[in-house]
């Protein structure tokens, strides 16, 4: 188990280096000239543009820029926004928890709805419940989340007036309001995830229920509920978990749209404005933080996988026959 974690962590470092380097490269290739824009636009004097460029170190080559960025980043300094001069790390610091709570809440909704649905449809395979569940999950997968958000806003905020349409309240200020503002985005993101999770879990569980070891358990008289809840689920959880990990990536990305629609001041809206304005340090910072989050989440998923599936832990196992 320890080797598994150590191995993953070891891979983490070069991976992060690659990712950050790729982002620097990407950012460098962005057309448009932020120096010019800051200096005053197309009519700015060349000298001024050059001066700004030099000030912002935009005239250095790729490697020096990356090196400088890396050195700063390791110390927690992600540079300053090209447009308002505020430290990127600060902004990310305040916005990250918001986005993360959005993603986490949505993930929670996915689990709460998807898991029972997946299990129920797998166990009652072929029944009316199964068909209904499959139709439901098909709808959930096909639904564009921005449209669902709009519909939910129309129903709950405009018609019924029970939930606020936009805005965000800090948890510290009022937990109730915090929750009320996040309910709609949570459900919007979560329902799509729930549909996919339900599908995957059903498929994994159906496969597991056909395995020989489930037959053995039944042949020895183990109660059916226990067969499903313990014997089958533990084996089906592992592949479903992997899918869930991938889903989380989509959730993290999906926050961008949600934050736009619901006017939530998270990292999504932050990076969106940065992208339209070519605010390079911001883009770089956000992408790196998100990538890091995702990699760590994957690590957690891998560890959980190892806990669930003992075969994975022991890499030299099984040359026995």
């Amino acid at each position, binding site marked *: 188990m320890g080797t598994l974690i150590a191995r993953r962590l070891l891979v983490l470092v070069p991976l992060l280096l690659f990712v950050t380097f790729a982002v620097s490269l990407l950012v460098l290739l962005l057309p448009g000239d932020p120096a010019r824009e800051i200096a005053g636009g197309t009519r700015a004097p060349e000298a001024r543009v050059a001066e700004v460029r030099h000030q912002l170190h935009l005239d250095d080559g790729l490697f020096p820029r990356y090196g400088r960025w890396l050195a700063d980043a390791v110390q927690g300094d992600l540079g300053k926004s090209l447009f308002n001069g505020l430290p990127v790390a600060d902004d990310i610091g305040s916005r990250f928890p918001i986005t993360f709570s959005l993603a986490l809440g949505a993930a929670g909704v996915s689990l709460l709805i998807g898991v029972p649905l997946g299990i129920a449809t797998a166990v009652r395979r072929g029944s009316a419940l199964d068909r209904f569940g499959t139709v439901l999950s098909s709808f959930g997968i096909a639904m564009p989340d921005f449209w669902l958000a709009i519909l939910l806003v129309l129903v709950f905020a405009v018609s019924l007036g029970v939930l606020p349409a936009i805005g965000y309240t800090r948890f510290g200020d009022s937990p109730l309001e915090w929750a009320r503002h996040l309910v709609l985005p949570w459900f919007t993101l979560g329902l799509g995830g729930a549909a996919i999770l339900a599908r995957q879990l059903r498929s994994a569980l159906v496969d597991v229920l056909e395995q020989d070891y489930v037959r053995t358990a039944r042949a020895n008289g183990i109660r059916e509920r226990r067969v499903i809840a313990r014997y089958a689920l533990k084996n089906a959880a592992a592949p479903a978990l992997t899918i869930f990990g991938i889903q989380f990536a989509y959730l993290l990305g999906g926050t*961008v749209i949600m934050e736009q629609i619901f006017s939530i001041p998270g990292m999504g809206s932050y*990076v969106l404005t940065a992208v339209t304005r070519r605010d390079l340090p911001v883009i770089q910072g956000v992408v790196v933080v998100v990538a890091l989050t995702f990699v760590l989440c994957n690590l957690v998923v891998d560890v959980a996988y190892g806990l669930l599936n003992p075969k994975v832990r022991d890499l030299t196992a099984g040359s026995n026959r």
Partner: protein
Amino acid sequence: MSTTGPFEEEAFERDAEGQSFSGDPRELWRRFRRQRVAMAALLFIVLVIVVAIAAPLFAPNNPNTIPTGARVNALPSWSHLLGTDDLGRDILSRIIFGARASMTAVFLIVGLALAVALPLGLISGYFAGRVDAVLMRVMDVLFTFPPLILALAVASMLGPSLVNASIAIALVFVPSFVRLIRGQVLAVREELYVEASRSLGLSNTWIVRRHVLPNVASPIVVQAAVSLGYALLAEAGLSFLGLGVQLPTPSWGNMLNESFGYVLSAAWPLIPPGLVIFLTVLAFNLIGDGLRDALGRERFEALR
């Protein structure tokens, strides 16, 4: 697996079709045809494509002209079957023309992604070794970016337009396609008939062309069909954020973007574009499911 006749004990519970699929495309079509829901979905998609191609024939009005004195954000009426948007333009016509953008984008995305992923996946899976290791590391790097953010970054880098957005999204799809193709190729490579082919002295090119490719084609086709749905969602999403098709050219996504400002006052124009996105994605997914069932569950391992 050896059978001396259907008296065999396991025959009753195999895949959806009770028999493993042989790989013949005509057989596939026949099995697919038996599934009514999937066929209905296919019909729908064909309809959408036809309408998209012959848009001027179908649209009652010009999608871009702003008629003078027209009612704004109007509900459906006989002159405007789906009502009008915030500038008085006919929504139905805009949706019909929007089909062009969306369908083009969708097939462009999946086509590009496959074109890049197929050779990469084949080489990586068949030859394995160092090439495979390097390629997988590159894919891993791509995988760590949450998809929308990567698409955002690339789309903005190239400039907002239909083609550029498509390229960006295709880039996001490449790693998962490569992984799928590679996985399938690896599995086929381990099959006994590939080893038998090598023992017969057949060359690698021959084996790949005649044994590997045909046997990995089916799961790839299914994944491609399902991806069409995801591609549409992604393109609509980017357009909604303003990074795809640029106004005034209609696309289902940017129609929602336009009308979003009026969500509190005039909600109707928000309904048709979203609905048609939903239905089209649903149709693509149902086709994918139908294909998967036609091929039989046993040929499927980890698909998305």
